[in-house]
């Protein structure tokens, strides 16, 4: 209940700010996404009644754009590059290894909420292919055997 009240005032501020502007739905969703890292369903429902936009329309927008997420992000975001260079240099093997170690699918978060796995297009450092990025830190020329060690450092951090 407490949480709901917080949501209501948060949404109200956003709606007041954007109400009369064109394209307000997407701008409000941006703010929610940036603040929470995803768009919680309770917020989407609140937004729906305040903007008088059907929830179905809000979900059409959320699910259309990759930027918006519907579930909380993992604590650490792992992005594996599948651009052409990384692909040729063995990215598919790297992804497979990460999936095996963390038991997670692409675009999903591990059950403990610690890691989120994304497959992305070029990260802009093809010379280092294959590239893995964790929380903004770039690991270049990654070998399959090194994955366990890299992930372990983040696991240790959690412990």
């Amino acid at each position: 209940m407490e949480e709901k009240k917080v949501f209501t005032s948060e949404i109200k501020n956003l709606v007041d700010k954007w109400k009369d502007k064109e394209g307000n739905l997407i701008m409000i969703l941006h703010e929610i996404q940036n603040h929470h890292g995803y768009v919680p369903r309770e917020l989407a429902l609140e937004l729906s009644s305040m903007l008088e936009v059907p929830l179905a329309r809000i979900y059409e927008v959320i699910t259309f754009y990759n930027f918006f997420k519907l579930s909380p992000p993992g604590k650490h975001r792992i992005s594996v590059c599948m651009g052409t260079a990384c692909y040729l240099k063995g990215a598919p093997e790297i992804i497979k290894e990460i999936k095996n170690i963390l038991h997670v699918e692409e675009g999903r978060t591990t059950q403990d909420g610690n890691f989120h796995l994304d497959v992305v297009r070029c990260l802009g450092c093809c010379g280092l292919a294959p590239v893995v990025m964790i929380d903004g830190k770039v690991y270049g020329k990654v070998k399959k055997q090194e994955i366990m060690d890299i992930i372990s450092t983040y696991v240790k951090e959690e412990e």
Partner: protein
Amino acid sequence: MAKAIKAKINGILLRVPEGTTILDAAKQVQIKIPTLCKHPDLVASASCGICIVKVKGSNKMLRACCTPLEEGMEIITHDPEIVEIRRTVIELILSNHPNDCLKCGRNNACELQKLTADFGIKTESFPQTLRDLPIDTSTKAVDLDPKKCILCGRCVHVCQDIQDVWALSFLERGMHTRISPAGDIQLADSPCVKCGQCSAHCPTGAFVEQDHTARAWQVLQDPEKYCVVQIAPAVRASIGEAFGYTGKNFTRKLYALLRRLGFQAVFDTNFAADVTIMEEASEFEERLLKGTKPLPLITTCCPSWVDFMEKFHTDMIDHFSSCKSPHEILGVLSKTYYAQKNKIDPAKIVMVSIMPCTSKKYEVSRSDEMFASGFQDIDIVLCTRELARMIKQAGIDFESLPDEESDSILGEYSGAGVIFGATGGVMEAALRTAHYFITGKDLKKVDLESVRGLKGVKETEVDVGGKKVRVAVAHGLANVEYVLNKVRRAKKEGKEAPYHFIEVMACPGGCIGGGGQPYMVTDELRAKRAQALYEDDAAKEIRFSHQNPYIKRLYDEFLEKPLSEKSHKLLHTTYKARPTYRK
């Protein structure tokens, strides 16, 4: 008048009003361009690409469904290349559509299947990539199998634009696009009102009514059960379509048919429509003369409308007639009045109803009041499409059946009872009797033409003993907003209500256009179905509910008078706010 334009289709010169699509214009030169996503009820979404045609002087192919013919255009609607492209489009759709035809609810009635047959596709040209999406049976009325969806968008248009319900939308995009209520919840937890217009408009088996024919066969073979049946007004005007007839009234053959299927008593929902009128007209009289509750009075025969109101317009609850739908009234009377008169144990009675409607499947357990007889008043609901299948399963030569009569004491109906099936019908029937209740005299002109027809909102005035009674009739739920907002505005400004009486039916055309009716309905067909009901009314000797001798008898012997304590207990219900989203 729109400007006329001249153009050529397949070398034949023609003139059409400006704005006519190539698809419609081509009909003038005897060409029916194949279509899949286009439905006559809906604005073209141009999503499938089957209807492509060539235009001379351009390399680009055009979609006939959404492109207006232009002055001087030379269109080619078919050549080997066009046919080949259309075939490829179908093959691509088939590459992510399961090959379940033999076990699909739309087998033999599927528009994709028909096109596949028309184009003689016999092999899989592209490897299949099927999506693993679960079937949703949660509404108990309409089942959704998103794997079978071809993303034509008809259901989305109907649900969002025609019905204003917004239970359905496309989620995600590209390869991953799928049909779903917002956020992977079940339909029953969404705003869905079970109107079934999605199933009536879906070209494939993605939306199909939940089939209860097996349940019906099972009770019919149980010697311990006493199976009775009722048919709704709209069914008699549409069942013929399963056998090639349009706009023909099959009331008496339906009575014969249902007896041969094994029902021990065949009743008519029209009788209960007459009861509804007695109750609702009395309610109206009370509100108008005594001001017991606020005006306008709003009709409640349609369970999708009731569900819609309970989710979206709860400020109108006080305006709702408390009277149940004819469907439910017949159910409760069969297990009380009829059972007592005929000394039948109501526990053994199984009431099956034949309805044009998927929402009636939901209505039977909507609230505790639907168990007023002490049992569930209606046991099984079959929609028109299901009955058509049962006729074929039984092998009954429907067209050749003799005419028979319904069974007393819940079968005889007045002309007012049968027009319930068309938009405006309830209003017309109610006003006929309300006029009598209020003035003591019958209307001189029985037909109220001004509430008939397919216009989305019909507003008119009727003279009732010198008082102008203002009424509104809306059908297709998107049309309700206009009417209700007028009421709200007047309330807010402290003015007199703009109407005294409002009728709402969820489906376009009313029940004759119901979600459980035969497929491919157009306004032309809706008008024909309605006409069949109005002809039945006109041919009736008794055209007022209050003059139906069996109605008089029902009140004399059982209910005492309209709005009596017993009537309230058995024939009336209550409403409450329900969340639009339960998750």
